[in-house]
């Protein structure tokens, strides 16, 4: 079975999220006091995950992949959301603290891999090195 991965959508063309517009996200884009919102593969293909995310996301986004191994390395706690979306998860600093640290966010900003871009409507080449 393919390893589970998590996907974070970051809005395109919004300077509040990008160090280098539409290419390199800012650590701030991974910080949320409610927990960083991601969607888990749950055995689905990237395309299936993205198509499902698009149902709720109305703006154009670039989608970044976060691996379970990265989360383990950063000691990020992955919390299933309690809403009616079984794929939706939240990344916490730890079980008792929802907001990721700057260190965790900076690592994800530098290392999360872009897998899909709404402008191009294609699955981007994926790097499975981490």
């Amino acid at each position, binding site marked *: 079975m393919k390893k589970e991965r998590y996907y974070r959508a970051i809005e395109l063309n919004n*300077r509040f999220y990008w160090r280098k517009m539409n290419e390199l996200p800012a650590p701030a884009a991974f*910080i949320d*006091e409610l927990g960083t919102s991601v969607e888990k593969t749950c055995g689905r293909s990237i395309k299936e995950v993205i198509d499902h995310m698009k149902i709720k996301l109305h703006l154009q986004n670039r989608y970044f992949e976060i691996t379970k191994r990265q989360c383990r390395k950063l000691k990020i706690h992955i919390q299933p959301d309690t809403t009616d979306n079984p794929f939706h998860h939240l990344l916490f600093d730890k079980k008792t603290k929802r907001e990721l640290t*700057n260190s965790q966010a900076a690592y994800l900003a530098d290392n999360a891999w872009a897998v899909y871009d709404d402008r191009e409507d294609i699955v981007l080449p994926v790097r499975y090195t981490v």
Partner: protein
Amino acid sequence: MKCAEMVLNPNQHTTGFVMQDYGSYNKDNTSLVQEKEYPEKLFYSAGEKAQGIFSSFLAYTGNISSVKGVMVMANEKQEEGITMTENLKILDSILELQDNWNQHGAEHFSEDHIDFIRDIIKQLYPQPMIFPTAAKSIHLEYDKNDNEMLILDIKKNRSILLFIKKNKRSKEKYVSLQDALKAVSAFNGQ
């Protein structure tokens, strides 16, 4: 009122002194450049490097009866990177954000919070990138060489969390504004 302003050129080779009644003096050649008048205004100094220049500046302003202080201004003609004017506009945009601006319940930013960051921005050279977070804080960020990063994570209560990453090592701690400015200067090799 007689007052004075110091302008710090971004290439930091030349510092111009501008004084009401006394005209403008260039630090390098101490020649009179122009006359300029300023309304009564509380100026303030910024950054450790500026403090050193400020001492020289005072030598020039000995005859001025009421020097309120000094404002160090980053020149808007930066060859690379963002200007202070652009950053002030970005802060205006952040202030306009409404609740749920990130589509995930993030709160808007207060005028007091943005005012505090405006004051900091006016003391920084080079200018940082500015990012709002969905945790009621604002990041002032510098990147260098793809593997070095400094973030001033400025919270709603005006506390400053300094984050520095170099290669794969990082550290973060709460600091005073003065220490934050020192860290920015050191990071940028000043």
